[in-house]
């Protein structure tokens, strides 16, 4: 297993784990090295930049949700700290 994560689009601010990665693992990105603040299970995401509350979470170069709290690089990203924008759009009509 050469790589443990994948960043799908250059606009993305999160990466997806391709293996279970323990907390405190150092992750080498293109321009920096970050440390994981949580255990990241296979298929789950972690932040590769600091993300402010209400900022968009970008994967596939598209918005997959909004941060409900401030997220630091290396943090696990999931339902506990992001919410759908889709469900809000559809609540209008």
């Amino acid at each position, binding site marked *: *297993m*050469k*790589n443990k994560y*994948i960043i*799908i*689009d250059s606009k993305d601010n999160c990466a*997806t*784990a*391709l293996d279970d990665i323990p907390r405190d693992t150092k992750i080498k990105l293109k321009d920096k090295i970050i440390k994981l603040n949580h255990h990241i*299970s*296979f*298929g*789950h*995401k972690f932040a590769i930049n600091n993300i402010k509350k209400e900022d968009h*979470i970008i*994967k*596939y*170069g*598209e*918005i*997959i*949700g909004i941060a409900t709290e401030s997220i630091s690089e290396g943090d696990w*990203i*999931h*339902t506990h700290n*992001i*919410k*759908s*924008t*889709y*469900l809000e*759009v*559809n609540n209008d*009509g």
Partner: protein
Amino acid sequence: MMDEGFLGYPRSNGTIGIRNKIVVLSSVVCANTVVRRVAEKIDNAIAITHPFGCGQGGISLSNTFNILAGLASNPNVFGALVIGLGCEVIFSSLLADKIKKSEKPVNSFNIQDVKGGTISAIEKGISICENLAKEAGEIKREFFDFSHITLGLECGGSDFSSGLSSNPSLGILSDKLVNLGGTSILPEVAEWAGAEHLLSRRAINEEVAQEIMNLFKGKQVENRSPGNIAGGLSTPEEKSLGNITKGGKATIQGVIQYTEKPKGKGLWLMVEPGLDVISVTALAAAGANIIVFTTGRGTPFGCPVAPVIKICGNPKTCEYMANNIDIDASPIITNGKSIEGISDLLWKKLVDVCNGEKTNAEKLGFDEDIGIWRA
């Protein structure tokens, strides 16, 4: 060089085939065996059979009629013979007339009108198809640019690997084809739920944007199973994007309905039920001369009239079903290979297949099955 074009078969209606097939088509289930016996005697002929053509009406009937006509009108088809029984709902002559609108040579007859029963009917069919095959053999491949390619974007047997490897690889390829002036069709409307607001932002105008949103108005908004969430999918849009990323990022030109054809070049969405065989059949009937099929679990399925390239990102499937998978995208998951790198391999394969190289499904003869949405 590879981006300049491919060698294809020119058709009188301006479309370009990457195959030069004779279609032998049954207008009704009762003609299926005769159709198969005729096709097996002719080089480059393909039997298109189905369990319909009688005892049906309404949308089910018109869907069957239009899909059968669409398949035989595909650019990869040189000409067709329609064989009916003679007392069915779908008249072989009416089906032939519809196919003739594509300016191809088309013949038809009914088994009940041939003295000598099915033995004579098979002989008659073979004789007609031998003539068609001779004419087809006189057409030679010529050089054309990629604006003549219509690509169908399909996925099936998806798994964890699809959204991370094969689908984004196909998305890059689709964008490349669209940039070269070609056409792509993204089917499987149910898979867009959760990301329609993102798709609608890419629509060419407000009307198309609204049309995309209206497809889902008042529909179920939660598409994730508990297993999806446990697996790391945080929002409905993240799940849907894993699928629709195979459509790339191009501007969406419009929405076409099942049995319709794209009304121009570029990326089009197609509304249809999203079952693999039905989707691939619908794409071919809409004029796709090539289809790329992303899979995780693996699938052997091909299509009678359009080559189907399989790309898979699951390493186990790529090993277990190696002779069914054309492009192994699993190094994205296992070995740090870039999505762009795999997409380049896929593009080279697409160009080779356009130029005549057989896909694995073609080599194995998995190219006779079709599916029709009975509605």
